[in-house]
C-alpha cells in the first residue's frame, strides 16, 4: 500500500519543498500543490528508479554537509592561491586511483561530486565495475595522502549514512 502509492517518500517531500521554494511563497495552497506534484512525479517516473536509497543513519548527513561546506571554502582559497601565485606548468598535477569501499550507487555519486567540489581534486572517471574512482589532483606531492584524506574524510562518513 505505502510502497504502491508513495514509492519514494523522501523524494515526495523534496519535490514539495523545492516547489514551495520555486514559488518563493510558503502557503497552504503551495504546500498542497507541491505535495500533489510530489506524489504524481514519483509515480510516473517509478519505472526509471525501481530501488529506493537505503539509509543507515540519515542524521549524519548534517555532519557530512557541514564538513563539505567548510572544505569547499578552504578549497576555493587554496585553488585561488595556486591560480594567482604559481606558474601553470609548475603545478605537479597527476591522476590517482581511489579504491572504493562503498558499493551503494547513490553514495558513490555523492562521493564523486564531493571530490570535485573539494580541495584540488576532480573525479574524472569511474572504473567499469564501479570499484574505484579516477581522480585528478591539481597539486600534490603525496598521492597516497590525498587518497587517504578522501577515504578518511568523506567515504567513512558516507558509509555511516548509507546502508
Amino acid at each position, binding site marked *: 500500500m505505502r510502497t504502491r502509492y508513495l514509492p519514494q517518500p523522501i523524494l515526495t517531500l523534496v519535490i514539495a519543498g*523545492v516547489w*514551495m*521554494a*520555486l514559488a*518563493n511563497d510558503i502557503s497552504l495552497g503551495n504546500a498542497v500543490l507541491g505535495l500533489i506534484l510530489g506524489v504524481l512525479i514519483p509515480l510516473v517516473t517509478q519505472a526509471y528508479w525501481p530501488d529506493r536509497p537505503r539509509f543507515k543513519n540519515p542524521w549524519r548527513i548534517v555532519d557530512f554537509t557541514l564538513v563539505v561546506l567548510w572544505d*569547499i*571554502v578552504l*578549497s*576555493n*582559497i587554496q*585553488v*585561488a592561491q595556486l*591560480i*594567482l601565485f604559481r606558474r*601553470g*606548468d609548475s*603545478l605537479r*598535477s*597527476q*591522476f*590517482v*586511483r581511489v*579504491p572504493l569501499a562503498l558499493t551503494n550507487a547513490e553514495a558513490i555519486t555523492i562521493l*564523486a*561530486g*564531493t*571530490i*570535485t*567540489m573539494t580541495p*584540488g581534486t*576532480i*573525479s*574524472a*572517471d*569511474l*572504473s*567499469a*565495475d564501479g*570499484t*574505484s574512482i*579516477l581522480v*585528478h589532483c*591539481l597539486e600534490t606531492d603525496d598521492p597516497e595522502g590525498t587518497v587517504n584524506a578522501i577515504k578518511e574524510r568523506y567515504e567513512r562518513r558516507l558509509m555511516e549514512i548509507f546502508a
Partner: protein
Amino acid sequence: MMAWIAELLIAGLLIVGAFFLLVGSFGLAKLPDMMRRLHAPTKATTLGIGALLIASMLYFLIVLGLPSFHELLITLFLFITAPVTAHLVSKAHLLRHPELRKDLPDVQASGGWATLGTSPQDTQRHEA
C-alpha cells in the same frame, strides 16, 4: 546603524564573490592544459557564486524585508550540476586524447576505466 552594518556586509560579500569569480575565469584562461583548467571553474566559482547568493538573500531579507528562497535553489542546482558537468568534460577529454592513457594509474579491476574500456577495438578506434 543596523542598515549600515547590513549594507557593509552585503557589499563585502559582493566583492568577495566577484573576486573569486574573476579568479575562476582567470584560471580557466591561464592554466596550461585541459585537466588543470577544469579545476578553476569547478572550485573558484563555487565560493564566488555562493557569496553573491548569500548577499542577495541578505539584501532581500534585511533591506527589502522579503525572505527569498530562490538563492538556496540556485545553490542546490549548482552543487548538483557543477560536478556532473566537470565529470563529463573530463570523460570526453580522456576519450579524445589517447596520449593521456599512459598517465592513468592502473585500474586494478576488470573492464578498465569506464570511459576507455580495454577491448582492442576500443583503443584502435580512438587511436586511428
